[in-house]
């Protein structure tokens, strides 16, 4: 696992992707950065360090001399935009990893599921998007053309 300083950077990036909106907790409030770090480390070993390094490097392009943590949320989103324009495969993997695992951690069951016990507390975001939840079936929902 990365050190505290690196985790803070990833947390800030995750918060930039999915902030708290209209009273609904953001991804960082729900610890999704832990999911991102675990997933990137599992799928792309060594790339968490690359992610935090690049976030700081591109921060200086958005505001001269600033680190990623020193940027405001809109500036941080500007960093993600710059990173998304890179063609290098490793760069693509880094930004793809951040985005895919942040959205995945937030919109899947991850924030509310304990794999060890099988206990599920439906994430609040499911209700906000109108997801009916995992179900054995939907008997009443056919529709004619």
């Amino acid at each position, binding site marked *: 696992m990365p050190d505290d300083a690196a985790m803070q950077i990833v947390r800030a990036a995750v918060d*930039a*992707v*999915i*902030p708290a*909106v*209209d009273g*609904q907790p953001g991804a960082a409030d729900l610890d999704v950065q832990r999911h991102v770090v*675990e*997933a990137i480390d*599992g*799928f792309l*070993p060594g790339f968490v360090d690359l992610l935090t390094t690049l976030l700081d490097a591109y921060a200086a392009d958005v505001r001269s001399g600033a680190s990623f943590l020193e940027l405001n*949320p*809109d500036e941080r*989103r500007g960093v*993600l*935009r710059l990173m*998304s324009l890179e063609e290098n*495969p490793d760069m*693509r993997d880094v930004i*793809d990893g951040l*985005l*895919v695992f*942040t*959205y*995945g*951690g*937030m*919109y*899947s*069951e*991850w924030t509310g*599921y304990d*794999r060890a016990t*099988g206990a*599920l507390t439906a994430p609040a*975001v*499911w209700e*906000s*998007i*109108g*997801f*009916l939840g*995992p*179900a*054995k*079936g*939907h*008997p*009443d*929902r*056919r*529709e*004619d*053309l």
Partner: protein
Amino acid sequence: MGGPPDVIVVGAGGGGPVVAKELAERGVQVLMLEAGPWFDPDRDFTLLEDDMFSIVDGRFRWGPGDRTRAPWIRRRDGVGLILQTAGVGGTTLHYNGISPRAYPHALDDSPLAYADLVPYYEQVEDFLPVRQVDEGDLAPKDALFGLGCEKIGLSHSESKDVTSQVWRRAHNAILPLARMTPGTPLTFPEVEGCTMCGKRLQGCPHPAGAPVERKAKRATNVSYVPAAVATGNCQVVPNAYATAVLFDPPAQGDGGRARVRGVRWRDTVSGDTAEAEAPVVVLAAGAIESPRLWMNSGLPNSDDVVGRYLTTHLQDVVTGFFDREVHPDVGQVTMARADFPGWGTLFSQGNGPQAVAILLAGAGSGFWDDPTGDEPWDFAGRWWGPEAVRKLREYHRTLSVLVCTDDEEHPDNRVTLADDWGADEHGPVPKVTYRPTARSKERQDWLARKGAEILRAAGAREIHRTNFPRALLTHIMGTLRMGRDPATSVAGPDGQAHQVAGLFVGDSSILPNGLGGPNPTLTVQALAARTAQAILARPPS
């Protein structure tokens, strides 16, 4: 199994179990090896997107059954995500069950005529079974898709043989919809058939409590595998990762061909290695692992064809936003499709929240605020921040359409070994290289525009195109392809390798091309049934 194997099948995915069952039913002793675990749908399938389908530690990942261990990695060049599953059932564990035939015209230049394949299509369709979704059984998302198709002038077809532009209620390897009344428990035997749960990426355990023969989605773990095992002539060994095909070099009387003699594998739990000998080996590990195994075994490849001509259907997604409930989480994942021979195919694609969020905001090329010019979609690519969060709240009003392109086969699109990476516990790892040709990209763009036209006609107020920057690999085909000329193909029309006697191909790597765009599994299975017949017809060794 009553004795040493006559045939070893490497891989229990879409094609391997078909070969195994057809042989075992006729008294052939079959040993089928599978790299992943053997799941119990009722016990193991939780319907949850991360738990089941995380590419890192989901049950259906490409990796060992022990989820505390790292996934198996491939090197990727021009490729984004590769979605394959290790486990008995293979990638049919997560597939939609969609089972169309190839477009007939796509086989015009192949060594096998479409008409010759039809009896094998019928055989597989009858066994699984494959059925067209009944009129009146469409989920709301699919009814909307069908409405859009009708409004742009496509007529509906019930035919399995497509030669013109039509839309169809899907032919799926899914049992008919259960007749469900409110209050009836959604468990077997109170209900039989498909319960419209909307979860296929996460596996189909429904109806809960049903025996495997009555599970709704007819993945091979609940269809061909149990049928093969029930003969008493087929042994399935899970957690068995094949590391080498054993063979003898060319000898007199073999026409200059090497001759296969067995398989070596590694137990992914214990790490122990084992070997078995047999005069026939069937490669059915998928279009990445089969050529990898070929190369790691040192099997003959004098024309350097092995691994080449990879096709992927150059997939993409267009999503419509409606002012009515659509519910992408309800129904069989795909109950309606549109066919465009010469271009490819489109079909409605139900998804859970994780998948929709990634497709709309996490995975595309470009950004939501990029101008779209004359294109028929309103925004494309990826986004983040408050606007993305608010947009994703419209999940329940979205309909996504998957684009499957008739992508051209090109020799430089290929699977090789990643020589500059370290080997994993099974040998040098694969490198997967894919870049679309200009014509493939033109076809993909045409299909995306057609998908937007359908969505708009159905009433979409806004349309998004994902526009993947790198290929998404779910349909992976052609890397040990069938042909008559050994200089440009690996296996003959009977499925046997040109250069290795007794070695057959029983998975999607044998496909001569992308079949015109339709989902490949049924064709893989039909070819596997045909290859089984060829194996039976061989002279005794």
